[in-house]
């Protein structure tokens, strides 16, 4: 990897494929880990990942681009008009590629702060949209939540396609190159940054899952009525989880926009950004991050290899490869669900320090409630702690 960063020439051939796979692995692992956080651990079936990803993309195209234009104009560079819808789309390319990127070339600090600003803004806006899409159905059954979110994913794409000030409608629009100062291949740096952000979010998720809050999430997944009965605000916790994971998911869309230097709604389809993360999660095994990593790596590598060897497949098949890919991925989900319902790496029991698991298991094995004689009044049967206490009393 260091070799690739060091090389200043454009990456090509085999190295190009590796960079591409690394970039997509980083993007999808962020979404899939956030999904694992929501569904695998808290049982919130978020079928609207595409909404949050698209918000990240629109943050770059609608907010960062305007901010950059404003900064560039303040610095005295003359830009073509961009206020009206027509100018926004048709003067976009010269504005970005000539004026803005030319200005950004000598301003590394400005570039880095623009990148950080976009990431922070998409984090906040992603969390906001997570709150917004949770409003109608977070209190209701999981079915209603799934229906609402999957509809929202389609709706966000329709708005992006038709509302020009967001991302230029169907034509899409270019966004400022925040690595204009970097003389080498921009995509390599982008892949490294994406993998780094994926690593950071992995540590954040891991810390949260091993904390008391993570145990609370798992208990909500197992039985929310019980959790509610001990005084926890189940709806509030589920909403917080959805908002937090939405923010992280939006980072992925933001990074994708910078990777392509281009935003168009067709890049953020529901099939890509909702169905595939779910497939990765189910394939790897919901409930543990190792499975999510493995599932993401498998699917991304398979998809990229299919695309690269497109010409070979086109001579074998009588129909376009993209349909074949859909059939393959659709069938894969069903097959995994049937033959490996808990995924390639099943979830492990959470270790809580201070509990003697061996004793717990032994006592549970001893007690078979169906055959056990009815307990007399005052007699105790249960966990060691209570029994010892009662025995001490008598």
């Amino acid at each position: 990897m260091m070799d690739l960063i060091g090389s200043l020439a454009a990456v090509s051939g085999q190295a190009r494929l590796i960079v591409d796979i690394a970039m997509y692995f980083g993007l999808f692992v962020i979404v899939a880990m956030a999904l694992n956080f929501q569904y695998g651990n808290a049982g919130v079936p978020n079928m609207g990942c595409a909404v949050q990803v698209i918000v990240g993309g629109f943050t770059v195209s609608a907010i960062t681009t305007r901010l950059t234009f404003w900064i560039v104009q303040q610095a005295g560079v003359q830009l073509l008009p961009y206020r009206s819808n027509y100018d926004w789309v048709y003067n976009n390319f010269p504005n970005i590629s000539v004026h803005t990127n030319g200005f950004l070339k000598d301003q590394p600090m400005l570039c880095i702060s623009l990148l950080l600003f976009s990431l922070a803004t998409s984090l906040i806006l992603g969390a906001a949209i997570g709150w917004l899409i949770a409003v109608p159905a977070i209190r209701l059954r999981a079915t209603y939540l799934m229906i609402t979110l999957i509809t929202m994913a389609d709706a966000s794409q329709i708005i992006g396609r038709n509302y020009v000030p967001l991302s230029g409608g169907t034509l899409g629009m270019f966004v400022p190159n925040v690595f204009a100062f970097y003389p080498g291949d921009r995509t390599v740096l982008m892949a490294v940054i994406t993998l780094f952000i994926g690593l950071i979010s992995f540590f954040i998720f891991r810390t949260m899952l091993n904390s008391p809050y993570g145990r609370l999430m798992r208990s909500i997944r197992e039985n929310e009525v019980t959790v509610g009965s001990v005084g926890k605000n189940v709806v509030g916790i589920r909403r917080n989880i959805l908002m937090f994971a939405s923010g992280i998911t939006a980072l992925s869309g933001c990074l994708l926009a910078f990777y392509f230097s281009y935003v168009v709604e067709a890049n953020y389809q529901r099939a890509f950004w909702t169905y595939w993360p779910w497939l990765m999660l189910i394939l790897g095994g919901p409930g543990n991050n190792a499975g999510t990593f493995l599932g993401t790596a498998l699917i991304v590598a398979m998809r990229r290899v299919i695309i690269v060897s497109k010409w070979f497949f086109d001579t074998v098949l009588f129909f376009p490869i993209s349909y074949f890919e859909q059939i393959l991925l659709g069938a894969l989900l069903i097959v995994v669900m049937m033959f490996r319902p808990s995924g390639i790496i099943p979830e492990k029991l959470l270790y809580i320090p201070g509990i003697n698991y061996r004793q717990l298991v032994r006592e549970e094995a001893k007690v078979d409630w169906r055959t056990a004689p009815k307990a007399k009044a005052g007699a105790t049967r249960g966990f060691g702690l209570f029994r010892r206490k009662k025995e001490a009393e008598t």
Partner: protein
Amino acid sequence: MLLPAIWMSAIVYAAEITLLSIGFTLTYLTAKIPNFAHGTYAGFGIYTVFTLTRILGISPYIGFPIAFFIGGGVSILVYVIVIQVLSRMGGGTIVLTIATLGIQIFLTAALLIYAFWIRTIYKTYTVGFMLKENDFQLFDMPGIFTVAVSICVVTVIALHYMLTRTKTGIAMRATAEDPELSSVLGIDINRIQIYSWFLTGGLAALAGAMIPLWFSSTPTTGSAMITSIMAASLIGGFENVYGAIIGGIAIGFSEILLTFGLQQTLGMWVGEYRPLIPMIFLVAVLLIEPAGLQAAYEKIMASKTGRRFLSTIGWKMEG
């Protein structure tokens, strides 16, 4: 023409959405899952009619019963191969719903491959077609208008008869209420499930067969209608077939007439946002009353004035 074209369009669309949402609700009642692949069954109806009309040169109306059986067959296959196996393994609602999402992607890709294959062999347009020129004229109107309305009415009456008078329909309702208890009473749940999946798939494909006679059709037309179907079913309360009929009519009319009206007042750009209308309905229903018309009906039945009002308009009440 007896009616303006926009009204006829709305009526045809409402009939299709009604048939689709009845099937969606039946699936939800018997299998307890929202079937995201339900809209895609309509695509099979579309391409059955297309093949018969454009390739074999037969009238599209002969394709309606064939589409019914093809859709039913696809639906039974989906149930037997996927849903039954997964629910026996103990998959919950969420797992089964995700499985239907996978089925949707699979079936849509199958339809796209079929359309591509027909295009390479017969060198005709297979995407974005209409069969209006193959329609006949009745009462100075396109035949599909009369046919769609009568199919919808006949289906609703037949379904009501089946669910209240025949043994299969009563067994279906019992299975929807409590599968374990009805299996104790000697009902073969598996057979009832297969009947209900056949019926839902068949109705969906029948609705799909009517689409190309009025609207432009592609392999993804059916999948794109799933939002309208879910909104219609949700208006009816999600667990009530009669509610789904009212919801389907409401969504079908409002989606076309509201778009048209807004286009007249605000400008033509509103037409692009037409898919948002069912979504707005869906969110509004969830925010106001998640149980939809079912809850409204129960509220009326609970109050004295409501019961008196219903008896004055001649509503028969149980109990």
